[in-house]
């Protein structure tokens, strides 16, 4: 028994619903009690789908349990097949039905359904979760539909380069995109475009938009591209074992990864791929441009599904010059890869599905930017740290109307904008800090991060290089800029020294150090000259300094003494 407040993943049958809902011509009969239909709203509300998921529930109640629930299952299957005439039928059960053991899959197999292929899903609800359920359902469906095409044991593996002999363009399948996955709709378009530009066709995209007949064409491709291992990993390795199909495993999120992806696919398929230029995406230049200097060493905390966590770690550390101060995932199935990536960054990966543990790690890491899921968005908001969502679980606002892939060249552009904009706004906050003494200024005003300044909690400490960056990123209008720079710069240098040096000695979000030290009015006034986003940290450092020395009062001199102390 395990206490859960919010969950990253739903139960495994919701994973199966994702597969069924992503496809065309598939229907899922789910033996489940009244109430389990709540899952429909994940699709109709979060994904804003304009049709109901293709799922029929038995919605049994207590009074049905005394009778023949197996009969109810059969009646429901019959009615669903008659009404929806699916090209393939998935049959399964949710957690409660698993306990009453009606075996809906076997019941369906025993029925005359007019030749509709039936795939029985057994998804252990008490040990597995949503992504596993999606991967398993996708695998069972593919396996069920391809069982008549299985090559004999000891068959010769088809060459991924056979397209040359066959006198056609090379072609691959894109596997893994699904509803409720992160930006899958646009990733598919972007990767299809990318491949087409190098003369590679996309044969089947699945599960998103595929029909059962499309799955039966999977072996026609020269290779499979595993875009999202959470959903397609199992299918890809089965196709590799059973049909000898090679898998492209590099996930093309970010510049380096997109290049690696093209290299992997060109070597595998024997396709000449012209050297890619940096100009394919704006990210490299945007990242090099002087305006981005202030991104240097920004502390970033990453928590996501494995695919997006791994990609984010690489982009953040290599392509944006951030410092990754936390990396983790809730995808236990891919924990090994995330652990390895964390180790390379000198970190210990956080593998957890307890969002409170993630929030605690986040607070301890004192990041300036959080890249996470919906859960981290809320945690970051509480901590007053900007956040960009990079992975499921989603909120309706993470399914944008505009084209916004994560993968490929355009994906890199989207990533640059969506990760950097919260920080640009952070700089704006700094400018507001500079204008604090102007009469128009209302203290506590923060333009977009929330309804008020976080109470005495620093947004984050200014990282090394922040001061220089602030000069570099002041808004246009040279006249205004010149007069603005000098004083705030001096302030932030002080702030930076105070804040960064002894950061680790003090809890990131704990209360101000308790003790007898009292701030004098001039001490308080000096403190208020420091930009708000480091002020909390400066306050705590100074209080720690005063407490250590048993000082009863903290005045401006104490503040400068503390500065000198921490700058050693």
């Amino acid at each position: 028994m395990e206490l859960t407040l919010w969950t990253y993943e739903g139960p495994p049958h919701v994973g199966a619903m994702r597969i069924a809902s992503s496809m065309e011509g598939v229907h899922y009969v789910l033996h489940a009690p009244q109430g389990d239909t709540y899952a429909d709203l994940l699709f109709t509300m979060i994904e804003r789908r304009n049709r109901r998921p293709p799922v029929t529930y038995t919605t049994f109640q207590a009074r049905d349990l005394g009778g023949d629930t197996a009969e109810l299952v059969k009646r429901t299957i019959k009615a669903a097949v008659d009404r929806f005439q699916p090209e393939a039928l998935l049959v399964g059960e949710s957690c409660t039905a698993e306990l009453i053991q009606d075996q809906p899959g076997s019941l369906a197999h025993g029925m005359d359904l007019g030749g509709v292929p039936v795939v029985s899903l057994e998804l252990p609800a008490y040990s597995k979760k949503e992504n596993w359920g999606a991967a398993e359902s996708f695998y069972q469906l593919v396996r069920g539909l391809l069982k008549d095409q299985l090559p004999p044991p000891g068959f010769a593996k088809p060459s991924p380069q056979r397209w040359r002999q066959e006198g056609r363009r090379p072609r691959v399948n894109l596997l893994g995109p699904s509803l409720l996955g992160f930006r899958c709709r646009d990733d598919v378009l972007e990767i299809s475009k990318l491949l087409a530009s190098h003369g590679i066709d996309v044969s089947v995209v699945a599960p998103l938009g595929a029909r059962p007949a499309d799955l039966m064409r999977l072996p026609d491709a020269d290779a499979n591209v595993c875009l999202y291992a959470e959903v397609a990993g199992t299918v890809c390795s089965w196709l590799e074992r059973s049909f000898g199909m090679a898998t492209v495993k590099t996930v093309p999120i970010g510049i380096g990864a997109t290049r690696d992806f093209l290299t992997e696919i060109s070597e595998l398929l024997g396709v000449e791929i012209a050297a890619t230029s940096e100009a394919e995406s704006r990210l490299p230049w945007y990242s090099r441009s002087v305006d981005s200097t202030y991104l240097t060493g920004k502390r970033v905390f990453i928590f996501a599904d494995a695919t997006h966590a791994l990609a984010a770690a690489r982009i953040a550390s290599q392509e944006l010059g951030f410092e990754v101060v936390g990396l983790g995932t809730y995808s236990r199935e891919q924990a090994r890869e995330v652990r390895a990536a964390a180790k390379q960054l000198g970190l210990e990966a956080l593998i957890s599905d307890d969002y409170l543990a993630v929030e605690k790690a986040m607070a301890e890491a004192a990041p300036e930017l959080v890249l996470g899921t919906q859960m981290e968005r809320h945690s970051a908001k509480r901590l007053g740290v900007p956040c960009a969502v990079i992975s499921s679980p989603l909120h309706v606002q993470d399914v944008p109307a505009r084209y916004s892939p994560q993968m490929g060249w355009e994906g890199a552009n989207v990533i640059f904008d969506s990760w950097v904009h919260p920080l640009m706004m952070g700089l704006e906050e700094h400018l507001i800090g500079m204008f604090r003494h102007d009469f128009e200024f209302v203290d506590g005003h923060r333009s977009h991060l929330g309804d008020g300044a976080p109470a005495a909690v620093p947004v984050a400490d200014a990282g090394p290089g922040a001061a220089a960056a602030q000069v570099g990123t002041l808004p246009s209008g040279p006249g205004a800029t010149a007069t603005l720079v000098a004083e705030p710069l001096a302030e932030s240098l002080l702030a930076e020294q105070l804040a960064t040096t002894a950061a680790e000695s003090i809890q990131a979000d704990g209360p101000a150090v308790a003790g007898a030290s009292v701030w004098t009015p001039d001490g308080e006034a000096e403190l208020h000259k420091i930009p708000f986003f480091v002020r909390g940290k400066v306050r705590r450092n100074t209080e720690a300094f005063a407490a250590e020395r048993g000082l009863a009062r903290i005045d401006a001199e104490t503040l400068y003494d503390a500065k000198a102390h921490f700058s050693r």
Partner: protein
Amino acid sequence: MVAPPTSADLALPEVLKQSGQREVFCGLTSIVWLHRRMPDAFFLVVGSRTCAHLIQSAAGVMIFAEPRFGTAILGERDLAGLADANEELDRLVRELLERRPEIRTLFLVGSCPSEVIKLDLQRAAERLSAQLAGRVRVLNYSGSGIETTFTQGEDHALMAMLPLMPSSDEDQLLIVGTLADAVEDRFRLLFERMGVPRVRSLPPRRSTELPPVGAGTRLLLAQPFLSGTARALVHRGARLIESPYPFGVEGSRLWMEAAAAAFGLAPAAVAAVLDPLEIRGRRALEPHRRELEGRRLFLLPDSQMEIPLARFLARECGMELVEVGTPYLDRQLMAAEMALLPGGTRLSEGQDVEKQLERVRAERPDLVVCGLGLANPLEAEGIATKWLIELVFSPIHGCDQAGELAELFARPLHRRQRLSFV
């Protein structure tokens, strides 16, 4: 006010009974508003990952730092041995209460899986109550989908609190059913002005401050889904005030008048309080009534509030009722409402969602009231919808809220008129 029903209208409408797929939430969903009503209570669902996922999806946004509800997710080991499951539950409760020392009442909430494996949560609650005596009271009820529909979860939660209510024969008006705090304060004030001796509420705002019940208790239901609680309170000596529910000007007035009559208050004094409210309420209603009048309304079963809302929308807003669906029909608690429905209204009880949607498509109503799973698909078919779940969180009771209540239904229609892409 609309003319009183004629004898022809009083003929009980024929009820279409449906069985098939039911597109409704289970009773666990009520935790979403119950935990807000009683900030010193924690709701621990003993269930599966599905239960946890349901509550978080129904709650919509994940805004709470550490919510006062959670799920003890059963694992394979718990299923293998119930003795271990009990030990595990005790351990988990101890850990939870250590972290949340402010909790005074802990509800162990049964779910479909816990009911099916027959995990005895009543005994668990007794055992834990004894262990935690004086600190935390542990109660249990079932919010499982096999036994409860959506709002029925509140009914079961209140029934679990009932044995702890002290007995007293003192005269009091007991308002039963969760109301928004502001609305409740308003009703108390109005009842005081009329001269009602004492007004108390169930559930209370603090879980430990339970009202007494006894022969002097007049029971006034603020929500139409509390059948079990009403019967159990009557069993404890309370007298049920039969009335329509306080939705709209008419319903709210009849509701307050019925309560005043139960205390034998002078009608003139009552009218003095209510007349200005009625005039103001009707004025607020008027612009929305103009928008809703003559529009055809189809209500799918969801929250059990469908019949009172249909009555309000038909009688005060002039809407035409195509079909009024309800998850289940409690004829006693709905008698006063059904008497006010226009004659010949088609009522349906239970659901076969596919067949019901066929009727919706055939009838092409102007507005469909439905759950979140169906709203966007119907909109995509060109049918305006109003989803009902927000009504259980919103202040909609009382004469002063009638305008807002009507506005919630007028908004989707109004919005359609505003939008143009040509």
